[in-house]
């Protein structure tokens, strides 16, 4: 049995990727994801893999594109401003049906913003991570253990559906240490028939491409790709319900703010208030049905984020006006306390449902 070890979130992400069969890492330094790259620089040579510090985020994501085209499990990691630079490459990955893991250890923005934890890249991650019609898989862990587990999941689903996947972490999850059990089995990346590995003179050439100059051809291709997205929305959505069955008020929060919200729920339950937490684990696909399932019994939703309010849009779309949806957020790198969320929720309960 695997031992429990104490690990920093960022390092756990890196080790989990190696365990998932990732042998190629391309990145560029940025706070607060630094430990991912530093860990990879140490580990990759030991497992016969590639660590390369690229000249820019743009170069790094295009190296990812090349290594993915060659059929490998490949990743990059960055933080908010760096992810903006990668968005061109992520659009190309999606357009060429290439899987890859992109880690965003979010900090505050816009611009250079700050280096403290934030959740202000929700729109960027879920509203199409670049130009054009597309989605990427977005996973939002709220513990170091879950970060590890979701890395394996992200690689698996990325390969299965041939699309990029993102772990949307943040400076708090990346920098904190928690006990974690790493997977014992080392996964070997699957063989990909479509990859450009060289024909070996045995097959017709493979082409990796996102260019379709005929509009009818591109429309048809996108419609097909969106059928895949619809299938993913049906089958791959993940969320956690915590004390929602009898809840009058349900807090909806993901990642770091969900950890704090969970503590707030415990405080309120101790006071006898029926408050629960619904925690989206996949942000795309967004757990609409899981939220809608609460509508018959809940009286009100409260969305808590470390932003000015982004995921709240998706909650409102899911609830579709059938129940009230309120918002509480801290931003700029500020983390809400359990007490301030509890006070907000308690006040919200006092106002007529």
């Amino acid at each position, binding site marked *: 049995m695997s031992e429990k070890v104490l690990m920093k979130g960022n390092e756990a992400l890196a080790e989990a990727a190696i365990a998932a069969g990732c042998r*190629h890492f391309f990145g560029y330094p940025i706070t607060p994801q630094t430990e991912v790259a530093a860990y990879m620089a140490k580990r990759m040579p030991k497992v016969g893999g590639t660590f*390369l510090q690229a*000249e820019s985020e743009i170069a790094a994501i295009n190296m990812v*594109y090349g290594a993915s085209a*060659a059929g490998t499990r490949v990743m990059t990691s960055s933080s908010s401003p760096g992810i903006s630079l990668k968005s061109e490459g992520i659009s190309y990955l999606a357009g060429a049906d290439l899987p890859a893991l992109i880690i965003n250890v979010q900090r505050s923005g816009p611009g250079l913003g700050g280096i403290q934890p934030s959740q202000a890249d929700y729109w960027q991650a879920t509203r199409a991570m670049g130009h054009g019609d597309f989605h990427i898989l977005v996973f939002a862990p709220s513990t170091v253990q879950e970060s590890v587990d979701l890395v394996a999941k992200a690689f698996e689903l990325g390969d299965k559906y041939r699309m990029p996947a993102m772990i949307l972490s943040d400076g708090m999850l990346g920098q904190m240490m928690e006990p974690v059990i790493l997977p014992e089995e080392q996964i070997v990346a699957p063989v990909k028939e479509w990859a450009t590995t060289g*024909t070996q003179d045995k097959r017709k050439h493979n*082409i990796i*491409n996102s260019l379709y100059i005929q509009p009818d051809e591109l429309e048809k291709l996108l419609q097909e790709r969106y059928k895949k997205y619809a299938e993913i929305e049906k089958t791959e959505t993940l969320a956690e319900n915590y004390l929602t069955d009898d809840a009058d008020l349900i807090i909806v929060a993901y990642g770091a703010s969900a950890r704090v919200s969970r503590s707030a729920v415990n405080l309120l339950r101790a006071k006898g208030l029926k408050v629960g937490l619904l925690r989206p684990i996949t942000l795309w696909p967004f757990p609409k049905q899981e939220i809608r399932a609460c509508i018959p019994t809940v009286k009100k939703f409260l969305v808590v984020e470390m932003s000015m309010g982004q995921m709240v849009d998706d909650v409102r779309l899911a609830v579709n006006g059938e129940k009230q949806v309120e918002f509480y957020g801290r931003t700029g790198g500020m983390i809400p306390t359990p007490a301030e969320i509890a006070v907000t929720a308690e006040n919200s309960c006092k106002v007529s449902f």
Partner: protein
Amino acid sequence: MIVFERPKALCDVPMHYCPGCSHGIVHRLVAETLDELGVTGRTVGVAPVGCSVFAYNYFECDMVEAAHGRAPAVATGLRRALPDGVIFTYQGDGDLAAIGTAETIHAATRGEHITVIFINNAIYGMTGGQMAPTSLPGQITQTTPYGRDVKTAGNPIRVCEMLSTLDGVALAQRVAVDCTKNIIAAKKAIKKAFEYQIEGLGYTIVEVVSTCPTNWGLSPLKSLEWLRENMLPYYPLGVYKDIKVK
């Protein structure tokens, strides 16, 4: 007896290039090289944005289309993932020396074992004739309608000269395909570049001074004259770096 036929590494399809454009000749030289070295089966080509973005339809080897300027980074990813692969990029002047300058310089200085075929025709072809980083002083283009004024639009970049200063570069050679003699020399340079890559000597680049009759607004024949009179004096042909020649 067949004395001249299509190289096996070239697909049997019509190309979309304009009459008098150099791409067709250079494609052929690359394909002949792959045939002669017997490496088509382990070759992956990278074609970024530009007129040659459709090169993936023309080569029998595996092909990857890349974003504008990013071919050296994509080729780096392929290189690291396929240790036995033969990797080449096929880039234009805007791609290599404007939007992709950082990727070009860093792939070169890392000494990535890749071969870069660089088409320098001093203009943006695909978008309809705008100033390129290699457009000549005084050259009229869509975005330099009064001629390239180096005081405001800057000076052209001599890519081989610049890259030859970097330690990772194994071969930097400038050729042309305007006449039979030069075509034969160009073929030799391209073959040498692939051979150096396969030997693991470093980054190799062959710059081909090329024509763009459509966007130059000249006939194919006049284009060749313009190339000899204007481009070759500014971009002298020759070997700028050869790691085997001390």
